[in-house]
C-alpha cells in the first residue's frame, strides 16, 4: 500500500531524511518512532505529497506521489501534528468542507460526518465553534476530518497529543478498529501507546531507519540481553551459580554478591526462565526474595536514542564472564567504582548497578581499571 524507496530530503545543507526505504501492506498499523528532529514529520509530509523528496520514490496505493499526486490524495487521510482547522467555522461546516473537497454529495457528506463524529466521541458537538473547543476536542475533530473520506491510508502525526488518558484509550481503540481494512502510519511520543497500537515500529534516528520490526524485535536488536534477577538465601553461592547455569536456556549466571542476607544473581538468558529458577529454589529450599525478568523497554531504547547514545555502544552493557567458567565475574563497573555501601558511606551518589540501564545523560561509566574492553562489550578481568 505504501512503498518508500531510497528517500532523501535535504533542507539546504541539512539532510533531514537520509536514504530510507520501507513498505507497508494493506491493513498494517505501523508506528513511527524517534526523537524530535529524527525526520518523522518530514517523511510523513513527503508521503502525503506536501513536501517533495530530494531523491527517492514514494508510491501510495500504486500511484507515484509526485506524478499522480491527486490520486494519492484521494486515498489519503492525513492529520498533521498542528491540527489544521478553521477556528471560525462550526465542526459540521469543517466536515462539510472536507466532504466537498473529496467530491462527496451533500447527503453522503452529512452521513459520513455523523458517523465519524460519533466515532471520535464528538457527536454532540457538531454545532460547536471550533475556536471554542478544547485542544483535545480539536484533536478529535481533526481526526474526524481525516477519517471523513474513508481513506485507504491514514497518516497520523501525533494523533493523541492533547488528549486525556481516557480519550487516548478511545483513540487507540479507534485506530485498532480502523486498521481492519486500512493502512495506518502514526507517530507518537507516548511509547506505551505506540507499542500497544502498532504491531510494527519503524525507529528513525538522525534521518535514518535505526530499526524496523516488532517491539520485541527492536528490543532484541537495539537493546541488550535480558536476564532474570534472582535474590535468595543460599547456603553455597558457588553451588547455586553452578545449578542455575545448568538450567535450560541459561547462557551464564552472575553472582552480584550479598544484599543483606540474600545473595543476588543475574541469570542471563534470552528466554524467561523464572519458572525453572523458581522450581529450583523450591527444590533446594532457598528462601527467594526476588524473581523477576529484566528486559530493556522500548521507552529506555527511545530515551537512549533521544540522548544521542548509540544503542549498540551501551556504556552500561552487561559484561560477560570468562567463557570457560560460566560463572559470575565482576563487570567493569564493579572494578571501576567503589561498592554501593561504600558510596553511601562516603555520601557519593549511587551509580547504576551492573547490568542496569543507565539513562542519565550526566552519568557516564568511567573507563575500566584493571580490565580492558576488547570491543565486543565484554570486559575481561585482569587482576
Amino acid at each position, binding site marked *: 500500500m505504501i512503498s518508500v524507496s531510497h528517500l532523501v530530503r535535504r*533542507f539546504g545543507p541539512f539532510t533531514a531524511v537520509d536514504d530510507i526505504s520501507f513498505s507497508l501492506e494493506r491493513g498494517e498499523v505501523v508506528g513511527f518512532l524517534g526523537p524530535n528532529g529524527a525526520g518523522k514529520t518530514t517523511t510523513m509530509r513527503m508521503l502525503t*505529497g506536501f*513536501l517533495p523528496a530530494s531523491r527517492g520514490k514514494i508510491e501510495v496505493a500504486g500511484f507515484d506521489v509526485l506524478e499522480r499526486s491527486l490520486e494519492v*490524495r484521494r486515498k489519503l487521510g*492525513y492529520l498533521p501534528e*498542528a491540527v*489544521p482547522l478553521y477556528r*471560525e*467555522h462550526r465542526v459540521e461546516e469543517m466536515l462539510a468542507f472536507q466532504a*466537498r473537497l473529496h467530491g462527496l454529495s451533500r447527503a453522503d457528506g452529512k452521513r459520513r460526518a455523523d458517523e465519524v463524529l460519533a466515532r471520535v466521541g464528538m457527536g454532540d458537538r457538531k454545532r460547536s465553534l471550533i475556536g471554542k473547543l478544547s485542544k483535545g476536542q480539536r484533536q478529535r475533530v481533526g481526526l474526524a476530518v481525516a477519517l471523513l473520506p474513508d481513506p485507504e491510508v491514514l497518516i497520523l502525526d501525533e494523533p493523541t497529543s492533547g488528549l486525556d488518558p481516557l480519550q487516548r484509550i478511545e483513540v487507540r481503540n479507534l485506530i485498532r478498529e480502523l486498521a481492519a481494512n486500512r493502512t495506518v502510519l502514526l507517530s507518537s511520543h507516548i511509547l506505551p501507546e505506540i507499542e500497544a497500537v502498532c504491531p510494527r515500529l519503524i525507529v528513525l534516528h538522525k534521518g535514518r531507519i535505526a530499526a524496523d520490526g516488532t517491539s520485541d524485535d527492536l528490543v532484541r536488536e537495539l537493546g541488550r540481553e535480558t536476564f532474570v534477577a534472582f535474590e535468595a538465601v543460599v547456603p553455597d553461592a558457588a553451588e547455586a551459580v553452578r545449578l542455575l547455569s545448568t538450567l535450560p536456556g541459561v547462557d551464564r549466571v552472575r553472582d552480584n554478591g550479598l544484599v543483606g542476607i540474600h545473595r543476588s544473581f543475574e541469570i542471563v538468558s534470552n528466554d524467561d526462565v523464572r519458572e525453572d529458577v523458581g522450581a529450583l529454589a523450591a527444590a533446594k529450599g532457598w528462601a527467594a526474595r526476588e524473581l523477576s525478568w529484566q528486559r530493556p523497554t522500548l521507552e529506555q531504547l527511545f530515551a537512549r536514542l533521544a540522548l544521542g547514545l548509540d544503542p549498540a555502544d551501551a556504556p552500561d552493557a552487561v559484561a560477560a564472564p570468562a567463557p570457560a567458567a560460566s560463572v559470575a565475574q565482576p563487570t567493569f563497573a564493579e572494578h571501576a567504582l567503589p561498592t554501593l555501601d561504600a558510596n553511601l558511606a562516603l555520601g557519593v551518589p549511587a551509580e547504576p548497578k551492573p547490568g542496569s540501564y543507565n539513562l542519565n545523560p550526566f552519568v557516564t561509566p568511567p573507563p575500566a581499571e584493571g580490565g580492558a574492553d576488547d570491543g565486543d562489550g565484554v570486559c575481561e578481568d585482569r587482576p
Partner: protein
Amino acid sequence: MRSFLAIYRRELAGLFLAPLAWILLCVTLFYNGFFFLAALEQSGGNVNASLGYLHRGPLWYLVAFLPPLLTMRMISEETRSGLLEFLLTAPVSDTAVMIGKLAAATSFMAIAWSSVLVFGLVVQLLGATPDWGQLCMEWLGAVFVSGLFSAIGLICSALSGTPLLAAFLAILSNLVLFMVPTGARMARGVLHEPALWIADRIDVRAHFDGSFQTGALDSSHVLFFVVWTALGVFLAVRIVESRRWMG
C-alpha cells in the same frame, strides 16, 4: 471545478466570518456614499456624472488598500496555522486553491462596489435616468481591477511570513503600480521608448479609463486584466510550490 467551488465557498464564508471584512465593507459603503452625495451636490444633480465620478477618484484609493487587507491572511496565516498543508494535501490542485482564494476576494470586492449599482437604483426610483450600460461596465471594470490587485495581494501573502508584512508589501506594490505609469507619462520627454512601453503595459488606470469608464466592453482591455491576473495567480502558485521545495 467542484473542488474550486469548495475552496471558493470556504474562503468567501471565511471573509464574512471575520470582523475585518465587515469593517472594510462598512468603510467602503460610507466612503462611496459620501463621495456620491458630494459629487451630486457639486454637479448640480447630474446623476450620471456623479455615479461615474465614483470610478474616477475614490475607486483607486480603495483598490490600493482593500485587496491587500482581504488577501493578507489567505496564504501567510494559513501557512503558519498548517491549514495550507491541509489544503495542499487534499485532492485539489494548487491552482484551484489559489483561484478559489482569488475569486473569493474578488467577489467580496464586487459586493463592495455594488453600492454604486444600488445608488443608481435609488436615483432611478427617485425619478432620474441613470445610464445603466455605463454603470454596469464601470462596475465590471472595478471588479476586474479588484481581481488584479487581489492577485498581487496573494503573491505578497505567499511571499510573507505574517499577514501584516503581506499587507504592507501589497499596498506598496499597488502604489508603485499606480505611480510608475503616471510618472512615466509626466517624464515622457525624458524617458526612452522601452521604459515608456513598459509603463504603458502596466498602466491599469489607462486600461480602465479607455474601456470600462466609457461604458464600452473592449476585449483588449479585458484581456489586459485577465492576463495580468492570471500571471499573478501563476506566480502565487509557483511561490507556494517553491516554498514547499525549500521546506
